[in-house]
């Protein structure tokens, strides 16, 4: 498109990437800026549930209907990110039978397919469930990898000409004549792919329109633009178990509450969650009681959880929003619906719309709505195609499933690689040189790491979210240095060292919440490996030059100089 309108999307989460993809496909000239790596905010901090809508079927049927519709679309366009595990709403003896019936009725009203399973059928499906569960409702819940989904949206946007800038923080929103005309952006290590230790730069990015898709951070961007956006961030804790105890999403069939869901996620299972309002989406306490609550409560459904290994916990902040004056006291009662805030209509500030609220499962729909809104601003009639056009990796997935052993890999490694890469598997895994597995926990080969490095520079956390490398039970203890090694010689040693340190520290951060039993032993093993064996904790490269001659200089020379 000649002279296509330029749109600046702020926020590299699922919504932002979804918007970038949608608008790029409709011919807009898109730049997306994200202050961390993709999924840095809420997207990278959710339990990975692809809602069937069942969870909202009693209290919020509008959301439930959107969920089941989007669920069907995502299965299609993002098949390599989705695992259709199915879900169960499980009733325990102490849970209300009336609520169970309401749930069933609600699902039917929202066109969510259901099957009622007896206790025996329920346990036959998921043997880890407690012996005294009474019955369950099966619904089409699924598991989705938010990282790969988000990255695939960004990749698609790039293929349609979008510019994606990560580690690019908005430092100011430029307003001229009551109109937003762009932003000032600070690139942490310069524009383009990230390179640790490269100097930071600033850039003024001007655009015909700005979309604020920063979720829980929307208020902060609003402040820079001089408008008030009342997001009410609410934190939720999630505990990652080392293995899957179940292969189906298990929901506790009772009215909303804490610790009522377990989602099989890739190789792990994620327990969730809590719902507590916080002031600052980045500064809130991550507390022991939340971890203990997850394990203790969900053990009622899955008793083995009490003895099982957790590898880390994480917290996410929901970007909840309610229109001014609603005044809901309990954050669990705030609507999960999303809102377009056109700042021209709302605040008399033209050129910018914010999107707030909503949930991951409906990210595409949100992107469609705001893209429609942007199109209206420019009189564009372009149709949304994101519901039909598969994401990169999902173009021809079924065919590839049959060929996954063709890359000379052991079958479980080929299988996992293909599950992650989808139709990109062949392009990524076909290599000339040896292709050893670098991350053994998650079965990630050198070729896949190299592919991710091609996309994200020296940012090993960005490599991690693309590949799952270092996300298994050793939490990077055995593989993060292998990942860093792959950056060399393209990147210099000090850069590699910094990138490694950053990944290692990031892995440590979440692992701290799981430090007992097996994971504490793992932490000590990692500590000994990286400390005792590698001496990374006292790396002499960081220090003043050592006086090598003062130390043992070998048998002959020591004898000669000491006379001993």
């Amino acid at each position, binding site marked *: 498109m000649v002279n296509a309108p330029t749109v600046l999307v702020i926020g590299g989460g699922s919504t932002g990437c979804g918007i970038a993809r949608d608008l790029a496909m409709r011919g807009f000239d898109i730049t997306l800026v994200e202050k961390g790596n993709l999924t840095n905010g809420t997207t990278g901090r959710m339990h990975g549930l692809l809602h069937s809508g069942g969870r909202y079927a009693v209290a919020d049927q509008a959301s439930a209907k959107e969920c089941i519709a989007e669920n069907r679309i995502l299965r299609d366009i993002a098949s390599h990110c989705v695992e259709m595990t199915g879900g169960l709403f499980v009733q325990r003896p102490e849970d209300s039978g009336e609520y169970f019936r309401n749930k069933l009725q609600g699902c039917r009203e929202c066109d969510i397919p259901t099957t009622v399973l007896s206790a025996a059928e329920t346990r*036959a499906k998921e043997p880890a469930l407690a012996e005294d569960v009474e019955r369950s409702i099966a619904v089409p819940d699924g598991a989705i990898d938010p990282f790969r989904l988000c990255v695939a949206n960004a990749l698609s946007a790039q293929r349609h000409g979008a510019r994606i800038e990560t580690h690019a923080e908005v430092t100011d929103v430029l307003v001229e004549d009551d109109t937003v005309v762009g932003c000032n952006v600070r690139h942490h290590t310069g524009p383009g792919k990230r390179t640790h230790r490269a100097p930071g730069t600033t850039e003024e990015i001007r655009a015909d329109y700005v979309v604020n898709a920063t979720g829980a951070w929307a208020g902060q961007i609003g402040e820079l633009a001089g408008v008030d956006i009342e997001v009410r961030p609410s934190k939720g804790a999630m505990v990652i178990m080392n293995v899957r105890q179940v292969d189906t999403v298990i929901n506790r069939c009772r009215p909303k509450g804490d610790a009522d869901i377990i989602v099989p996620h890739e190789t792990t299972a994620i327990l969730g969650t809590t719902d507590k309002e916080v002031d600052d989406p980045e500064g809130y306490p991550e507390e022991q009681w939340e971890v203990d609550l997850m394990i203790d409560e969900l053990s009622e459904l899955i008793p083995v959880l009490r003895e099982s290994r957790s590898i880390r916990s994480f917290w996410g902040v929901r970007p909840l929003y309610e229109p001014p004056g609603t005044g809901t006291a309990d954050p669990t009662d705030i609507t999960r619906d999303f809102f377009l805030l056109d700042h021209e209509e709302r605040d008399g500030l033209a050129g910018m719309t914010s999107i707030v609220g909503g949930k991951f499962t409906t990210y595409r729909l949100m992107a469609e709505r705001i893209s429609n809104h942007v199109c209206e601003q420019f009189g564009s009639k372009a149709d949304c195609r994101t519901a039909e056009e598969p994401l990169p990796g999902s173009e021809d997935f079924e065919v590839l499933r049959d060929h996954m052993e063709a890359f000379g890999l052991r079958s*479980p490694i080929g299988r996992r690689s293909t599950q992650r890469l989808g139709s990109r598997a062949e392009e990524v895994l076909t290599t000339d040189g040896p292709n050893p597995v670098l991350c053994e926990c998650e079965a990630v080969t050198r070729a896949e790491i190299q592919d991710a490095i091609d996309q994200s520079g020296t940012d090993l956390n960005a490599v991690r979210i693309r590949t799952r490398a270092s996300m298994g039970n050793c939490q990077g203890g055995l593989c993060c240095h292998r990942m860093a090694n792959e950056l060399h010689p393209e990147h210099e040693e000090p850069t590699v060292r910094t990138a490694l340190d950053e990944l290692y520290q990031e892995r440590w951060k979440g692992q701290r919440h799981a430090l007992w039993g097996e994971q504490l032993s793992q932490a000590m093993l990692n500590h000994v490996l990286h400390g005792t064996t590698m001496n990374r904790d006292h790396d002499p490269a960081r220090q003043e030059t050592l006086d090598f001659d003062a130390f043992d200089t070998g048998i002959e020379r020591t004898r000669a100089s000491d006379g001993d």
Partner: protein
Amino acid sequence: MSNDQHTDHDRLSSEQTAEVATAETTVPPSDERTTDLRPGADNCYKCTACDTSCPVAEVDDEFPGPKFQGPEQWRLKRSEDTDIDDSIMSCSNCMRCDSACPSGVPLSQMHNTARGEYVEGMSKLSREYVRNRILANYGRLARLGSRVPRLTNFVMGNRVTKWFNEQLLGITSEREFPAFATQTFREWYDERGGSKIESEDRRIAYFHGDYSNFNTPEVAKALVRVFESFGYEVAVPEQRCSGTPMFANGMLEDARRAAEFNVQTFSKLIDEGYDIVCSCTSCSMALRQEYPELFDFEDTELVATHTYEAIEYLRLHEDLDEAISETELEDEPALAYHAPCHARNQGLHRQALELLDELEGATIEDVGDSCSGISGTYGWKEEKYDYSMEIGEEMFEEMEDAAGTTGLTECPTCAMQMEHGTGYEINHPLELIEKALV
């Protein structure tokens, strides 16, 4: 000296206290669907002790090692993933990974279960399946063969037969089939009129396994005589193969049938006051560890907790060490002792050495920690034969270096390999004990 360890525990005096930490648990098997061993991966901290202890991985790079085959492969599994990497068939089931893992990963249970799943998906007409089924069910063939032992021995030693076996079945022609005894142990036992001793409080049920029945009855006879010399009544109930070769070949259904029969038979005897005693360390391993890991018949645990290896039993319940130290042997050749891998996991790895060290006139030399390489049926497979010999090389060398030219081991297939690699005659420690005591 207490003759009954259990009451010894019960009698702990008031100033004595005993506290037992919770023993390491394995995942209880479930019949409802394939056992889910993913929780076992929780124990793994990726230290590689299993990989560096694996004798197969050291010689065969097609085998990706126990860590991959065990906790890693299990952890990567989703319920709908049914494919098992074919390299599972390269595991010899020596179970060294079990005794290596500092963190309690149920490695051999994972391997056995995965192998069972893999074999289930194998073509039942494939050469590998047919061959493995034959090797796994050695006992059934032996039952037939031993009816006409001389003829069978002639045929099996025949070059034409061996050529046929290798070409058609993939059984190596490099090895000599073990000869069948002209009288089986059970025939001998019946002929002598069963146990010579009757006792209410000292009674054992002997699990002899197929090999000592058909091929080395002298070992079984030694066991009977040694136990009788300590005043034990020795029962020899009907029994099937322990299942060891079936586990190693993924023939879990065959193993299940054999195990069920054995558990039923032997548990009845336990109720009558018998303990189970084995002369083969792989048999005792099967009854103690593999049965509870893979099956859950009624009384599987009961059988496991009452099963002992023969020498272990006498050391724990009688003062075998004292008895041995009070006697001596004359003109006994020096012996080169090899500890079977399966003895390691049961704490039996060095007991024969320790015991026979006390026996005057006997010279025993340990030939080191290495695996013999045969691992039951592994070394019989044509495509594994070279690996088997490469693994065994260290043991052969140590045997050559040892003073004696007679070998000693508890395991019948280790004995085959020792004989095959060195030409030495191989004895069982029970035979030596019989010589010393009876």
